[in-house]
C-alpha cells in the first residue's frame, strides 16, 4: 500500500504537468483564437505546389 505514497505525488505531478502545459500554451497564444484553427486544418492541401519545376504555383 505504501506505493500510494509514490503514486499520489506522481498523479499530482502528472496533473501539475498538464496544468503547466495549459498555462504555457495559453501564454503562447494557442487559445487566443478559438475560431480559425478549426477551419485552418481543413485547408492543408492549399499549399501544394502544382508546378515542381518553378516552385511558384501558389493556389
Amino acid at each position, binding site marked *: *500500500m*505504501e*506505493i*500510494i*505514497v*509514490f*503514486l499520489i505525488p*506522481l*498523479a499530482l505531478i*502528472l*496533473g501539475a*504537468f*498538464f*496544468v503547466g*502545459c*495549459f498555462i504555457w*500554451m495559453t501564454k503562447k*497564444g*494557442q*487559445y487566443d*483564437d*478559438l*475560431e480559425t*484553427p*478549426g*477551419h*485552418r*486544418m*481543413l485547408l*492543408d492541401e*492549399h*499549399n*501544394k*505546389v502544382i508546378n*515542381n519545376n518553378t*516552385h511558384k504555383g*501558389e*493556389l
Partner: protein
Amino acid sequence: MNAHASTRTGKLEYFSYDDQIVRLFVIATVIWGAVALLLGVTIAFQLADWHVNLGLQWTTFGRLRPLHTNAAIFAFCGNAIFAGIYYSHQRLLKARLFNDTLSKIHFWGWQLIIVSAALTLPFGITTGKEYAELEWPIDIAITVIWVVFAVNFFGTIIRRRERHIYVAIWFYIATIITVAVLHIINSLEIPVSIGKSYSLYAGVQDALVQWWYGHNAVAFFLTTPFLGLMYYFVPKAANRPVYSYRLSIIHFWSLVFIYIWAGPHHLLYTTLPEWAQTLGMVFSVALWAPSWGGMINGLLTLRGVWDKVRTDPVLKFMALALTFYGMSTFEGPLLSIKSVNSIAHFTDWIPGHVHAGTIGWNYLLTAGVLYFLVPRLWNTQIYSKALATVQFWTATIGIILYIVSMWIAGISQSLMWRAIDASGKLVYPNFIESVVKIVPMYWVRAIGGTFVLVSFIIMIYNLYKTAKSGNVGKEEVYEAYALDESSIEHGAQPHRKLEGWPMIFAVLSLIAILVGTAIEIVPAVMSKQYITKMDVVKPYTPLEILGRDIYIREGCYLCHSQTVRPMTHEVLRYGKASEAAEFVYDHPFQWGSKRTGPDLARVGGKYPHMWHYRHMWDPREVTPGSIMPRYTWLFTQKIDYGSLPKKMQVMQTLGVPYSKEDIDSSVANAQAQAEEIRTNLVEAGVPQEVINKEIVPLIAYLQRIGVDYGKSEVTP
C-alpha cells in the same frame, strides 16, 4: 489563394511529407488487426467448448488470452495510432517528419516487439500482470522504441511551419508522455533469467500499480490517441470544422487530468484502503463529463452533413465509433459505482464493456481512418462502397451479439453467485452451476466475434483492391513560410537546432527522471511496511514458489481470482474475507479480474492432493460440466529445480525474509516437500514417477493459497 501566407514575411520553404512510413503502418495495422481478431475468436470458442484448446499447452486459453489482448492493443491499435498520427502530424504542422531513419527504426522496432510477444507468450513467458505480460527484455525494447517515437514526434513539432498546435496534437502529446510513465512504473521488475522476472511490488501495492497502469492504458493508449485521430479525421472527412474548438480545449484538459486517478475502480471491495477505492470511484464518475464532451464534439461536427454519413464509408464508421464511445464511457462510470461494481465485477459484463470500447470505438474508428487514408496514400478511390457497407453492418451485428450476450451472462452469473435462501444458505453452492448456465451465451459471443472477424476480412479485401487500383506516385511538394523568430531564423541552422533541443531534452529528461525516481524511491518507500503484518502469514516454501511460477505461466489468473470480497455470499462460498497482510509476499499479485472459474483465495486444503491431480489431468473427472482445459503436460514435464536458488535470491532482494540457509537448502527442501506429496498421491494409486513432474509443485502451491490466515484463528 493562400491568404494567410500572403500576409506573411520570412523564408518560403519547400518540403514534402513522408507518406511511405504511413503506408507501412497502415499495412501493419490490417495484418495485426486480423491476427488479434482471429485470436479473440479462438479464445471465445475455447470458452464455449474446451476442446478448442486443442490439448496443446501453446494453444491453451491461459496462454492465448494475453496474446490476444497484447495483439489487439499494442499491435493493432498501436500501428493504427502510429499511421494516423504520422499522417496528420505532418500536415497539421506543415513539416516532414523529423527524421526518416527514426521513422523506420520506429516501424521495424515496433513490429519486432510484436513478433517477440508472439514468440514468448504462447510459451508461458509472462510477468503475470494483465496487459503488461511481456517480460523485461521486451519491456526495455518498448521503452527504447517509444523514445524513438517521442524524439521523432517532438522533433517534427520543433521544425513546424505552423505556429498553432491543433487539438489533435495535444492528444498525441498526452499519449506519448503518459504511456512512457505508465509503462516504466508498472514494469519495474527484477530479472531472474532472460525470460523470467518478479514484480518489484507485492500484493496490494502491486494491484494498485497494475490497475493504475491497466486503466490508464485504456485511457492513454485506446482513448486519447484515438480522440486525437477523431479530431483530425472527422472534420477532414466531413470537410467541416470541429463543432466547438472551445469545447475541445475543455474536453482535453479535463480528460487528461481526471483519467489518471480512476484506476482503483478495478479494486473495489478488495483490501485496498477504502479511501483509495472511493477516490477511484469519484474520479471515474467525474470522467463521464469530459468523455461525453468529446463524443458530442465529434458527433455535432457532422451537423449538416448527415446525408454524407449515409454514403461515405469514412463518416459512417466514425459516426458509429463515436456512438459506441459514448456508450462505453457511460457504462464505465456506471460500473465504477461501488454498488453496481459489486454485481458486475469478476463477471462477463466486464469483457462485454471492454469490447464495446475496443471493437465499437477502436476498430470502427480505425476502419474510418483507413478508408480515409488508403485512397489518398495510393492516389485512387475506394474500391467498393457497397463492400464497406456490408462490413459496417456485419461488424455492428457482431458487436451487438457480443455485448448483449455478455450482459446477460454477467448478470446471470452474479445473481446466481449471490443468491441466498431464507435459511441463509447459498442457493447455488456449486460454482459450476453458474458456468453451465452461461455456456450458451459464450456461443453467442463467439459467433458475434466471428462476425467482427469476417467484417475485418471484408475490409482487408476492400482496402487491398483499393490500393491495387492506385499507385504510390511521387512525393508532392508543398510550400510554406518558416516560422519567423526574427533574427534566429536568418540562415542560422545551429541556432535553429538549439531552439529545438530544449524540447527534446525536456522529454528525454522527464523520462530519465522518472526512471531514476522510480528505481530509487520505490524500494526505499517499500522498505517501510504500512500493512500490519500478520505473524501467521509466512513466505512460500521453495516448492510452492515453483508451483506459483507454473500458475503464472499457465495464466490461471485470467479465469480465477484470488481475493474474497467482504460480502456475505462470498464468505459463505469461499471462506474468510481476504486481508491485505496475506499478500505481502506475492510478487506479482494474482488477484485476477475475472471469475470464469471460482475464486481460489481459500482453495488451500479444501481438497485432497488427489483431487487436484485428477482435476488438472481432466477437470471433468471431478467437476462434470467444467469448461477448464486439460493440463496434461504438467504430468510429463520435469520440475525445474535448478532455477530455485536464483529465484529465492531475487525474492530475498525484494524483501521476502528468506535466510541464507533457506536459499542454500532450497533444492533439498523442495525435493523433500515433493516427496511428501508424492507419497500421498502414490497411496491414492498414482504411478511413482510423478515426483519429478510439474504437477507436484503446482499442487503444493494450490494447497498453500490462503491457508496461513484462512485456517488460522486470527481475526482482523
